[in-house]
């Protein structure tokens, strides 16, 4: 009943759900929730400039390696800019995030208009990156996702203790000799890796949901950061699988939205149950 192609999409989405859920837990704990939003939007100018660069150098606008490389560079640059910007007087975290978001999204829109006016700039391939196209996943994509998830999981396992210290008490971590800056940098690199990997799966806007929603759901229940990350990974996998299956049953239902909606549904259900539970505890 489930064909080879569906298995491929299922495997890719499940892997991505797990990796982004685990990374998201640490991102949320560090209070960097919307850096993922910045990275997602900032991939847009990267994709456009990758296309233009490919055209200019004669590699062809669609070479995936070049597009991914440029998207990674711009996303990483924008994500790394948020923290120094936030240190400017009166700008704050939210102001810095909004500024980077607006700037990179605007630059992306302007560059994409050049791409679309290009003779060979048939928008098809680039348009899918806005909303993602999980159904068009190929074997090579799944291989890349597998390698990436192994790397991310290994890094998170090694750094978990340090990341937890920095997230919960930055001052103490600094005094205790934990390399705070290096760990923050590592976390942002992992986050950008997730976002760029997720462009194919979910597109620039919905990739944020994969990072935030499972992690926010897992945080509702008590547990250490490691346990929470594990739960978020499992939730991410489960909701991704549910979304893929739902979009198989209803063929017009886009996969990226189905997975996001599944994750949101689980989040709001858990939220209501959590409230009831807390209320019962208070009454008892």
């Amino acid at each position, binding site marked *: 009943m489930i064909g080879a192609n569906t298995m491929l999409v299922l495997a890719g989405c499940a892997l991505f759900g797990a990796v982004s859920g685990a990374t998201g837990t640490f991102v949320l704990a560090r209070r960097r929730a919307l850096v993922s939003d910045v990275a997602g939007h900032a991939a847009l100018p990267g994709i456009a400039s990758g296309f233009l660069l490919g055209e200019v150098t004669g590699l062809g606008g669609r070479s995936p390696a070049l597009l991914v490389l440029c998207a990674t560079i711009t996303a990483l640059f924008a994500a790394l800019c948020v923290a120094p910007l936030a240190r400017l007087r009166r700008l704050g975290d939210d102001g810095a995030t909004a500024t980077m978001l607006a700037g990179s999204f*605007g*630059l992306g829109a302007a560059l994409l208009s050049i791409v679309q006016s290009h003779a060979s700039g048939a928008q098809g391939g680039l348009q899918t990156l806005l909303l993602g196209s999980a159904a068009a996943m190929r074997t090579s994509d799944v291989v890349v996702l597998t390698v990436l998830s192994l790397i991310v999981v290994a890094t998170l396992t090694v750094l978990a203790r340090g990341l937890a210290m920095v997230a919960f008490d930055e001052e103490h971590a600094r005094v205790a000799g934990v390399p705070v800056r290096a760990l923050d940098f590592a976390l942002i690199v992992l986050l950008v890796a997730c976002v760029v990997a997720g462009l194919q799966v979910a597109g620039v806007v919905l990739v944020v949901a994969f990072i935030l929603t499972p992690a926010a759901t897992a945080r509702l229940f008590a547990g250490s950061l490691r346990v929470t990350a594990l739960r978020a990974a499992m939730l991410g996998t489960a909701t991704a699988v549910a979304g893929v299956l739902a979009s198989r049953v209803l063929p017009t239902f886009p996969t990226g939205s189905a997975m996001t909606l599944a994750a*949101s549904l689980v989040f709001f259900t858990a939220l209501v149950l*959590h*409230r009831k539970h807390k209320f019962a505890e208070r009454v008892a």
Partner: protein
Amino acid sequence: MNAFLAVDLPALVALLLAIIACATVGNWLVLRRESLAADATAHAVLPGLVGGYLVTGTRSPWAMLAGALVAGLLTIVLARFVVRATRTGAATALGVVCTAFFALGVALLETQGARQVDLDPSCVLFGSLETLFVATRESESSLLAWVTALPRPIWTLTAAAMLAVLASVIFAKEFAIRAFDPSFARVSGAAPRWTDDTRVIATTLAIVAAFEAVGSVLVIALVACPALAAAPFARSVRGQMLLSIVIAMPIAIAAYLASAHAPMWLGTTNPLNAAGTVACALAAAVPLSHGVARICQRKFHAGNAFNRRPV
């Protein structure tokens, strides 16, 4: 008819109105450290647009506007509920809620055959400043004919801008108390809750109207960037508001004209996306103005007006 009058001027008028509407409400959002609410609202209105069409069955822009307004308000209400119910911050709550809404909108758009709504996701994201133009007959070249031929989104935006300014003038004290000292506002009763609800409604209206006229890229930039660029120079809330509009207008006009005409000087005929260029220029103004403020501060030494908190 002159190309400037037909194409550029309506877009510039929409741009300036959007600046007035968005920068006014944006100042309150920035003071409340909620500059990202605009980003969330701009993404979350998508299911409202489609829902308005599906519920009424007509392609009337009013139905879609009403749907967008409902979706925008629901986003804020839900995000506040999430903040209260969990220990996560406002940023996480907004991110979770707005992606859920956006996914719902995309799903509705794809499954309900609402493709006839004339909604293209990329157009919703990038905006359509270029589609605002005035078409009058050659014979009618008076000012009145031009004004009556202005596209409808401009009139909606005018109403939203007037409402935003009016609310900000009438409730300036209440909004400021709410922004600077929420607990005092709650305990003293100086700024009752309905004043805050008024602010949220005016904000959502401004964002939705601007979103319709100029697109979400520009809305995100227009809400946050003018206020953030004015902040280092401001000594009062009123000053920050006026300054934010004064800073944003020339930047936006210059960026718009550059996007339309600069590519021709470089030898290509295709203009850049105007909304994107303006957004990019406004975002660049924020670190620039902070840099200028720092230089001024060093020159006229610390402890002067720049260090006072705005009230």
